[in-house]
Every structure is written in C-alpha cells, then in structure tokens.
C-alpha cells in the first residue's frame, strides 16, 4: 500500500523552481577527459541529489547516515536523499526536464532497475560510458551476466550495480516441517493443504514475481524465455499457466475468490497464521521480521530446487544531472569494499553485495567471511546456486496483464 501513494507519472512533479547547487560539471566530455583526482576535486564541497525508494527505514538510514556521513567527512559533499514511493516518479522528472531542454537537472542519481532502467536507456536519458573511471569498478565482475544485464536489457556502462536480491520462500518450522521446495511441489502442497496458501494479486511487485516463477516453470525453465518477447511462445505457455492457476483456486485461501492486495498483507497473514507460506525478494527481511517480533522465531526462509528469480539493482546518473562529478564520487563510494560490507551486515540492511570480495582488501574479505546470518535467513550462497535470470520487461508486463485478465477477475 506504500506503493499506492504512487507518483502520478508524467509531468506531475514540477522540477522547475527547485534551487540546486551546481558544481559546474554538466559538461560530460570534460569530465570523461579528467583524471579521477581531478573529478574528486571538482566535486569537493558540492552536493548530490539521490532519488530512491524511501519505504524502508534501515535503507534510508544506511544511505543518509553512513554514506552521507562518509561523503561529508572525506569529500565535503552533501548528500540529499529524496524519498520516492515509486522510482518511475524520478524517471518522469528527468524525462520532463530533458524534453523541456533543461540543462542542469534536479536528479543526480536514481536507484533503479528493470522497466525503469529500460525506459531511461532507450530514451537516451541515462549517462553512459563513465563507469571505467570509477576506481572501485575494478571490484565488480562486469562479465557476470547477472550484472551485465538488467532484466534482460544490456547495461553497457549506463548504470552502476549496487545490490543483488533473490526471491526466497519462508515457512514456520513449528507449523510446517516439510515445505514444498519446487513449483510443482508447491502446487501439490496447496491442494493437500487447502486454504493455507495464497499470493498477492499482480500488479503487486512480489505477487507478479511469483506468477513469473510459475510461468517460467511451465515454459520449461528460464532458458526457454531468454531474449525478446515472442508472442507465440507467450500464448502457448500462458494458456497452460492460467489453466493451472485457475485450477489451483479452490485450494487457495478464501478459495481464490479474493487475493491479498499487497505483499504486506501476505506478510501479516503469515504472521497471523492465516497462511503457512510466505515469500519475498529480500530473504534478509525474514530475519529482520523475527528480530522485530513480526515473525515467530521459528520462521525460516528457503530457496527452491528449480531456482528462484534473482536480479541486481543499480544506480543510474541521468544525462542531464547537474552534479555529475559528485554523483561519480558517490557511486564509487557505494561500490567500495567497506560500504558493501556495511550494507551486508544483517543489522544494517543484510543486502547481498555486487562486488567480488576476493578483489577487495584483506579486512573486507575477512569481514565478509565473518558475516553473521540470522538463523532464519537462508544463506546467499545456497540461494545463489539456483538463480534464475529475470525476463525482459515485455514478458513481465504481458504476464502481469494476462494474470489480471484471466485469473484475477
């Protein structure tokens, strides 16, 4: 429902009239020609405006306090975090500004992935080609297809990776000792335990991801769906998927007459023992929930044997950003071993890193090795063994619309 406070797209947000400092580095050609030290000096004493989803306090604190603190201390840069309810809002600001010919934009950096990134890249709104200049880019393995592609769109140096997430399920060991560990098992389990499973209705983000898992399974695996959208293949798989999901309805909570409207509602229902399974894109969330008293201590997250969707999220610099040098310094800091390690600490955020720890310093490596995982959280390595790539955006929206029309009504 936080997503319900959604930005209203388009020209909604008036970027004009927002006063912002410029560090005189809107000239990208000049920037690309400078050395890193020159770029840092140009950015010193300035500010950077970071637009990102603001729905999680711990993430906000990490960015504003930890990253913001380091930027201030080491570089004299002031970090302004602008909270969003929907990343599309920031994309629309940039779109509006570029269309209106605004040279120095209000947005310096956006936390982004998926459809939003594709919109920016295709619209030539993303600044590309600077990533090599960041010293800490050496810590990242850009050949990893999971990092080189953002929901099927090649990144090609137009954004910098920040965190990885992977879809995981959760159950309460006290209630369910043998949870289903694959999609077919899940379907069978639901029928054997009527009313104990359900999923949020798309367009909820996580609910749509669940539907994609089912779709991928009936397509014969993620490999069958790699690449651009194929209407014929979609229709084939969709027919079977909707059939299965409709047949599943009598075994679902409320017999499928209604679905939870958000992942939050599913979380509450799991906590209230109305359903026995939960799932999330952030397995660390299960640990946080146990610590906060939302889930019982016996809650446990786990992966599927046939794999779960994994994706990377990134930071992009708009082509008309006013403080590009400061943004580059910030991105470099975000990629640093220390910042990635801090982010991975379970009591800070618990987010999976995008860097290769063995490319970082000894201390950072030791830190990663010593990372304590909350017992309720499945290990990233274990999950990562069966990671499925995300589908391209056309598949995603077709699956979502198809579910709403064929199953959800």
């Amino acid at each position, binding site marked *: 429902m936080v997503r319900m406070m959604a930005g209203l*797209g*388009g020209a909604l947000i008036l970027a004009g009239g927002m006063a912002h400092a410029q560090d005189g580095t809107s000239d990208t050609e000049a920037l690309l020609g400078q050395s890193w030290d020159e770029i840092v000096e140009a950015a010193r004493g300035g500010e950077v405006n970071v637009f990102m989803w603001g729905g999680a306090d711990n993430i906000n604190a990490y960015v504003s306090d930890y990253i913001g603190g380091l930027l201030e201390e080491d570089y004299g840069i002031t970090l302004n975090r602008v909270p969003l309810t929907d990343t599309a809002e920031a994309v629309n600001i940039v779109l509006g500004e570029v269309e209106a010919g605004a040279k120095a934009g209000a947005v310096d950096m956006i936390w982004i992935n998926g459809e939003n990134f594709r919109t920016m890249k295709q619209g030539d709104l993303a600044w590309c080609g600077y990533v090599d200049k960041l010293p800490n880019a050496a810590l990242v393995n850009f050949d990893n297809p999971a990092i080189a592609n953002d929901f099927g769109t090649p990144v090609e140096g137009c954004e910098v990776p920040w965190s990885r997430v992977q879809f995981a399920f959760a159950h309460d060991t006290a209630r369910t000792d043998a949870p289903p560990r694959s999609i077919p098992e899940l379907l069978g389990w639901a029928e054997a335990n009527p009313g104990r499973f359900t999923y949020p209705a798309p367009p909820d983000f996580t609910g749509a991801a669940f539907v994609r898992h089912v779709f991928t399974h009936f397509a014969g695996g993620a490999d069958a769906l790699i690449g651009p959208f194929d209407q014929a293949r979609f229709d084939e798989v969709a027919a079977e998927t909707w059939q299965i999901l409709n047949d599943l309805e009598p075994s679902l909570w409320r017999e499928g007459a*209604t679905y939870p409207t958000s992942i939050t509602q599913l979380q509450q229902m799991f906590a209230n023992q109305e359903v026995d399974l939960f799932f999330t894109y952030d397995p660390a969330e299960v640990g946080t929930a146990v610590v906060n008293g939302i889930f019982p201590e016996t809650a446990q997250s786990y992966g599927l044997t046939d794999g779960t969707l994994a994706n990377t999220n990134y930071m992009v610099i708009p082509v008309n950003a006013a403080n590009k040098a400061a943004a580059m310094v910030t991105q470099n800091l975000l990629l640093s071993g220390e910042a990635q390690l801090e982010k991975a600490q379970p009591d800070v955020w618990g987010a999976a890193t995008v860097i290769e720890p063995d490319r970082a310093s000894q201390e950072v490596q030791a830190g990663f090795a010593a990372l304590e995982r909350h017992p309720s959280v499945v290990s990233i390595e274990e999950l990562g063994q069966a990671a499925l790539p995300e589908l391209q955006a056309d598949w995603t929206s077709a699956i979502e619309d198809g579910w709403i029309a064929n199953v959800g009504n």
Partner: protein
Amino acid sequence: MIGRGHPWLSLAPALGVTAVLFGGGLVLGLMGSFGMGRGGFTFDAWSAVLSEGRVWRSLGLSLWIAFASTALACVIGLGAALLLRRRFPGQGLARLLFQINLTIPHAVGALGILWLLSQSGFLARLSAGTGLIDGPAGFPALTQDRYAIGIIAHYVWKEVPFIGLILLANMQSLGDDPEAAARSLGASPFAAMRLVLLPLLRPALIRAGAIVFAFSFGAWEVPVLLGQSAPTALPVLAWQRFTDPDLAARPEAMALAMLIALVSALLIRAAFAGRS
C-alpha cells in the same frame, strides 16, 4: 430574514471559489475523460470503460455497498435516536460517544474495523480463546468478502451517530413529546411513532441518508482497506487507473470519476426533489 434582496457581493467569493475549484474540477475531469488533455477529442476512454465487465461489476458493488449502508444506518440511526431521547443509565455516555464518533476520520475507523473483524482480528482471537474456533479459517470471512460486510459495517458504525444526532436535534426542536396527543387518543406507542414522529423526521432523514449514500458510494479510503481484490469498489478502480504507469489509462480514470460524480448528482436531484 431580511426579505428580498440581492446579496451577490456576499455570495460572489464563495460562488467563485466553488465554481473554479469544484465546477472547474468536474469540467476538467470530463474533458480529461475525452482525452482532451493530450490533444483531440475521443470517446475511446468512455467506450473502453463502459464495455468493460470489470467496471460494471465495480459499479454494482459500489451501489450495493451504498444502498445497504444507507438503509442500515438509517434504520439503526433512527432506533438509536429513539433510544437516546429518553433518560436511562448510560444515556450521557452514549450521546458522548456518538459525538466523539463524528470526529473520528474514516481512515481510522476503517483500520479499526479491519483489525476488529478480520479472520485473525480481535473478535476472531476472542473466539479462539474461548474455544469457539480452531484457527483463523474457522472465523467467518467478514472482511474482503463478496458481500462487502466489513465495508458496510464500517459505514454503519460511522454513520449511525451522524444520522442519530441529526434526528435527535430535530426531535429536540419538535418539542418534548410530539406523539403525546396521538397516544392520548388511544394509539399504541409504536403506531404513534410511525404516524406522527416519522413523517416529521422524514425530511431530515432523507437528506442525511442522501449524504450517507453519496459518501459510501464514492469514498476510496474504506474499500481499499476492507475490500476484495476483485471486483473492487468503483473509486478504488478509478484510483488504480489514475496511478497506472501506462498514461493511456488516465482518461479512463477520469471517465470512472465522472461516472461516480454522475451517480452522486442523480442523488442530489432525488434528495432535493423530496425536500419541498
């Protein structure tokens, strides 16, 4: 009453603001529904909306919610007013709670009703505690159900004090005991109430009922918390279209909002027609 006159200067500011904001808002919504904001005039949004089964189901649901809520609130509100007009232990507290209820925002009430009536809510836990049910599934589905019981329960909870206080105020101005004469002629208390009091209260009851109907038909805050995922109340559907990343859905959202306004406008007509 001063009598005849032309106080247009006094009326102008209020009329002006109402015309610009309210009238303008409606007109722009109408224009938006014809796609006029993005150039051109088209019936596309309206034909899409009116031919969509989902829209009719939502309209039907919203009408059901409004009728049921209004009918129940009027009947119970009348009963509550009759109850509260005479002294009894607790009368003061009940009246006070009525007044407090008026000041409670709908969002707060809806959240409270959700946490009270859901299958894992307060009442369900009391039932489980006393052994009446085994688990949440044993408790009846009162929220997010196809009869919109939770939504109607909220509107009744919120509007009974509203209607009750209006009727009480009216009864106060009617004097101490308007039915006394009828009773002294041998009529039973119930008949006296039905034949004497009700007709006197009718205008106020109709007007209050119209307000309740319009609100329970067009409000978003309540069905979003207490309603099913599909079909969903008409205002929720309109808001979903308005916030859809696909901007082509925007004219459809306006069309739905105009539909809501149209039904409400027909209500004003009916309510004011019954007035004189």
